[in-house]
C-alpha cells in the first residue's frame, strides 16, 4: 500500500532536466578533455597489450576507429544535454562509454564506473520531460514526473558516498592515518599549507577522520532540508580541496553537479529560468508546445522493477568481498566497483620468469617490451592483472616454437607504508592457473592485520 502510494507521488520535472543538462555537458567536456590530453592514443592505441575484465575479453580498442567511439560518446553526451532524441542518446552514451571503460582495466576509476551505471539508470528516467529539444519536436512539455525517478539518482549518490565512508572504517585509515600520512607530506609544494600543515601528523589524522565522517554523513545532510545548503557548500569545499591535492580529473565537478539533485524544485526552476535567459528565447517559447501536467511512463511496472533490481544490486555488490578469505586491500578480491575511492597506497614490482618445462632453463621478461609504464605500474600489485599478463606471456613464448613454458612471477608489494613483502607464490606456474571468481590461492597472505569493514 505504502509502496504504491510512493510510486504514485509526483514531483517537478525540473531537477531531472537540470541533472540531464549538467551530466551531458560535463561528459561532453570530459571526452573532449580526454582527447586533447592525447590519452586515446597513449592509453588505448599505443599499447600492444590490453588488460581485460573477466568475461569481457572481446572488448578491445578498435585501432584508429577508437576515435570514432569517442566521437559517438561525445556527441551523444551533447545530445543528452540538449535533450535531443534523449532516450536513444543516453543509450548510445551508456554503450559507448561502457565499451571504452571495458577496453582496458588499467584505467579503471570508481568515477568512470559511476558514470557507466548512472547513464544506465538514466536510460529509464524521463530526464527529457522538460526543457529539452524533444519537447519542441513532440510539441509537449511536462511539469511533473514520478518522484521516484528523481529519488533513484539520490539513492545511487547516497550509496556512493556512504559506502566510500564505510570503506574508510578500518584501522589503517583511522588509527594509522594511512595512506594520507604518505600522500599529504608529498604535497610540500602546495602554496601556504604544503611546507607546514601537510607535514603535521595531527592534520593527517584530522583529514582521515574528517573524510570518513564527510562521506558517511554528507548524503543525509543533503537530504535533510535545514542542513542542505551548508552540506552543499561543504561538498564544494571538499571536492575542490581534494582536487588541489590529488590528480582526480573531472570527478570533483561530477560530484558537485550531482549533489544539485538534492535541492528542491524551486532551485532547479531558477537555474532553468537563468538558462532560458542565456539561450535564444524565441526557440523555447512556450507557445511552441503544449504544457502537460504529468509525465506518464509507458511501462511503469517494468521500469520500476528494473530500477529496483539495479539498486538492490548496487546495495549488495560492494559487499561481495565478504565471500573471499584474506585481507581485501591486499588480495583485492571484490575491491573494484565498491566505492573504495583513494583508499590505499599500494606499489608493486613484478618480474616474470619464463621457464622451459623440458630443459628447466629460464629467463626473465622485460616488462617494458610489452607494457606501458602505466600498465606495468597497475599490473604490479593487482593479482588479476598479474595472472592475465602471465597468460599473455605464456602464449607469447610458447607460440615461438613448439616448446612448453611455465610462467612464474617474482612479485613484491608494499601496502600503506608497510615494508614490501612477497606477493605471489613464486613456485606457482601461473600459466597453469585459470582466472575465475574463486579465491586465488597463490596470493600470499599479508603479514599483518587490518581491522575494519
Amino acid at each position, binding site marked *: 500500500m505504502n509502496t504504491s502510494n510512493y510510486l504514485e507521488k509526483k514531483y517537478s520535472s525540473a531537477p531531472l532536466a537540470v541533472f540531464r543538462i549538467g551530466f551531458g555537458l560535463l561528459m561532453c567536456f570530459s571526452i573532449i578533455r580526454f582527447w586533447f*590530453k592525447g*590519452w586515446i592514443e*597513449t*592509453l588505448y592505441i599505443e599499447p600492444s597489450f590490453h588488460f581485460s575484465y573477466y568475461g569481457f575479453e572481446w572488448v578491445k580498442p578498435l585501432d584508429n576507429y577508437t576515435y570514432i567511439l569517442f566521437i559517438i560518446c561525445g556527441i551523444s553526451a551533447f545530445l543528452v544535454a540538449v535533450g535531443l532524441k534523449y532516450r536513444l542518446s543516453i543509450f548510445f552514451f551508456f554503450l559507448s562509454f561502457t565499451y571504452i571503460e571495458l577496453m582496458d582495466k588499467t*584505467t579503471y*576509476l*570508481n*568515477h568512470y564506473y559511476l558514470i557507466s551505471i548512472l547513464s544506465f539508470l538514466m536510460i529509464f528516467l524521463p530526464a527529457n520531460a522538460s526543457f529539452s529539444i524533444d519537447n519542441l519536436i513532440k510539441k509537449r512539455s511536462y511539469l511533473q514526473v514520478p518522484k521516484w525517478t528523481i529519488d533513484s539518482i539520490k539513492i545511487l549518490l547516497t550509496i556512493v558516498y556512504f559506502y566510500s565512508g564505510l570503506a574508510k572504517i578500518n584501522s589503517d585509515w583511522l588509527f*594509522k592515518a*594511512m595512506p594520507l*600520512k*604518505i*600522500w599529504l*607530506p*608529498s*604535497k*610540500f*609544494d602546495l602554496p*601556504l*599549507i*604544503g*611546507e*607546514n*600543515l*601537510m*607535514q*603535521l601528523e595531527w592534520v593527517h589524522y584530522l583529514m582521515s577522520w574528517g573524510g570518513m565522517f564527510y562521506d558517511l554523513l554528507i548524503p543525509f545532510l543533503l537530504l535533510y532540508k535545514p542542513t542542505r*545548503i*551548508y552540506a552543499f*557548500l561543504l561538498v564544494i569545499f571538499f571536492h575542490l580541496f581534494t582536487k588541489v591535492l*590529488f*590528480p*582526480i*580529473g*573531472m*570527478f570533483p565537478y561530477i560530484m558537485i553537479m550531482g549533489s544539485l539533485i538534492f535541492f528542491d524544485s524551486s532551485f532547479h526552476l531558477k537555474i532553468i529560468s537563468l538558462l532560458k535567459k542565456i539561450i535564444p528565447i524565441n526557440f523555447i517559447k512556450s507557445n511552441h508546445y503544449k504544457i502537460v501536467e504529468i509525465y506518464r511512463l509507458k511501462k511503469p511496472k517494468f521500469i520500476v522493477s528494473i530500477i529496483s533490481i539495479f539498486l538492490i544490486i548496487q546495495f549488495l555488490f560492494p559487499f561481495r568481498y565478504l565471500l573471499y578469505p584474506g585481507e581485501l586491500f591486499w588480495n583485492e578480491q571484490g575491491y573494484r566497483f565498491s566505492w573504495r*575511492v*583513494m583508499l590505499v*597506497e599500494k*606499489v*608493486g*614490482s613484478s618480474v616474470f620468469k619464463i621457464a*622451459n618445462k623440458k630443459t628447466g*632453463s*629460464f*629467463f*626473465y*621478461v622485460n616488462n617494458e617490451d610489452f607494457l606501458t*609504464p*602505466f600498465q606495468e*605500474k597497475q599490473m604490479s600489485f593487482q593479482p588479476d592483472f598479474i595472472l592475465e599478463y602471465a597468460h599473455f606471456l605464456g602464449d607469447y613464448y610458447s607460440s615461438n616454437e613448439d616448446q612448453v613454458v611455465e610462467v612464474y612471477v*617474482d612479485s*613484491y*608489494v*608494499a601496502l*600503506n*607504508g*608497510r*615494508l*614490501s613483502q612477497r606477493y605471489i607464490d613464486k613456485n606457482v606456474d601461473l600459466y597453469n592457473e585459470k582466472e575465475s571468481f574463486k579465491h586465488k590461492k597463490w596470493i600470499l597472505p599479508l603479514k599483518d592485520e587490518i581491522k575494519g569493514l
Partner: protein
Amino acid sequence: MIRKNIILLFFTSLLLVNCGGSDDESQSDDIAPIAYDRAKMLVHWADKIILPAHSSFKQTLIDLDNSTKSFVAVPNQSNLDDIRSKWLISYKSWQHIEMFDIGKSEEIYFKSKMNSYPAFKTRIENNIMLGNTNFDDVSNYSSQGFPALDYMLFGIASDDTNILNKYTGGYDYSNYLTSLVNKMLNSTSSVINDWSDYRTSFISSTDNTASSSVNKLINDFIFYYEKGLRANKVGIPAGVFSGNPLKENVEAFYNKEVSKDLLLNALDSTIKFYNGTSYDGLSSGPSLKSYLTHLNSSKDGSTLAALIASKLETAKSQINMLSNNFINQIESDNNKMLVTYDAIQSVVVLFKVDMLQAFSINVDYTDADGD
C-alpha cells in the same frame, strides 16, 4: 534567512582562512618548516657529489688524452701500458657519474656515447677504414667511448706485439684512437660547462612533479641501478634475460680482468649517493637515506632506510665473491653470477616499491587521472 546564513558562513570561513594564513606565517618565522629540505639536498648533490665527480672524471680524461698523445707519437709497450692504465682509471671514475643522466648529459646522450657495450667491433673496424666518423650518429653509440677504447687497446689483435703493430703500421688506428678520446673529452667538457648555468635551475627545482630535479634525479638513480648496474653489468651477461649466458656482453670484454672492479666502483657510487657521502668521501649531507628517515611515514620508515643500506652491503659482498674476470666466472660457475644478480635485484624492489612509496613519487611519468 538562508541568504543571511550564507553570508555569515562566508565571512566565518574567510576569517578562518585568514587565521590559518597568519598562523602559517608566524610558524615559518619561529619554527623551521617541517617539510624535508629538498633544496638543501639538491645543493649537496650538486656541489658535493655531482660537480666534484664530473671534474675529477674530466681530469682522468685529460690524463688519458696526454697518454694517448704520447702513445700515438711513440707506440711502444711502455706507452701502451700507460694508456691502458689511464683508460682503467678513467673508466672507474666514469662509474661515479653515469647515473646523473640529467640536463646536458641527457640532452646529448652522454651515457650512451660513453658506455654502450658490447662494442660493435665490425662497425669500429669499418669506421677506422673509412675515417671521418660521425660520433653523434645513433648507430655509432656502440663504437665509441670506453667500450670502443677497450677494443682498441686490448682487442684489435691477439697479443701486445700485434696490437702495437696495428698502431705502427699506419695512422688509421691512431687516428681513431685520438678521435675517440677527443670526443669523450669534448662531451664531458660540454656537460661540465653546462652545469655552471644549469646548477641554478637544478637546485631550485624542488617540486613534486615529474619534471622537477629531485624526482628526475631519483628516477635516474633508480633507473641506473636497475639497468646500468643490475642488468647491463650482471643480468644480461649472466643470461638472466635470455636464458643462456652472453659472456661477450660483460663490461670491458676485451680487457677481461676488470669487469668486477668496474662493477664495484658502480656499486660504491650508488651506496655513496644513497648515503649522501660527498664525492671525496670526507663529508656527508642530506640524502635519500636521511630523507627516508625524516619522513618516517610508517613505523617501518627508519627500518627501511637501514634495510636498503644493509642490502646494498650484502650485494657488495656477493660481488666480492666473484672472479675478477666475469667471462671466467660465467664459464666456470654462472650460478654465482645469478646469486649476485638476486642480491642486487632485492634492492631494486626496495628502491622502486618501498622508497618510492614513502616519497610518493611515480616511477617515471604516468599521465592519467586517478580517483
